């Protein structure tokens, strides 16, 4: 039996739309904004999976992921600005 979860379905649709912008986006910053949104959505998804599997340690994984994504986006922004 296939169980349809409305939260995971909404997250999947949002990620697919962001992926469309990543492939389509006319400029580099468009793609980077889309990737930034995808990392934010992925952080929420990891916390949701922590609840589904009943393991609190997955929230720490989400925390580290958010930290690394923040650093990566800042580094890319500095590089595009020309002052890395």
């Amino acid at each position, binding site marked *: 039996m296939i169980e349809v979860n*409305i*939260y995971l379905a*909404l*997250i999947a*649709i*949002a*990620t*697919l*739309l*962001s992926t*469309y*912008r990543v492939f389509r986006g006319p*400029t580099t*910053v*468009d793609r*980077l*904004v*889309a990737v*930034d*949104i995808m990392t*934010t*959505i992925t*952080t*929420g998804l990891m*916390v*949701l999976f*922590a*609840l589904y599997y*009943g393991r*609190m340690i997955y*929230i*720490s994984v*989400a*925390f580290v992921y*958010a*930290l690394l994504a*923040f650093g990566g*986006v*800042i580094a*890319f*922004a*500095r590089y*595009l*600005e*020309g002052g890395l």
Partner: protein
Amino acid sequence: MNALAIIGEVLVFIGTFFYFLSALGLIRMPDVYNRMQTSTKSATLGSLGVIVGVGIWAIGKGYSPAWIVQTVAVAGFLLLTNPISAHALIRAAYKRGIPLWHGSVVDKYGEHLASKAQAEEAEGETSETSEGVSE
């Protein structure tokens, strides 16, 4: 106990719906500045809803109270860092010279840069004239 689970589930639904809205703004808006404007704010609000909602939902399911502490920590971190990364990205876009959409009417950063350049120019002229007087 059950009321907490229902509150958490409603919060998670609101959060995922805001995720969907942010992705919709990402493909719907005409230029990079508008896309950042619509998507980053609603994604921040959505992740706040999802993460805090998961904490409350876990308390309602009977898990330990450490869940709400950890989820609030992650939510606070996202709330602090998401606007910073969006601001850095969009300043990089402006400095690369990506043009605004033709329907945009306000460009405060451009006005600020122009006024600063003008002030520096005027300052340079006055210093030159003062040097001339002293000589």
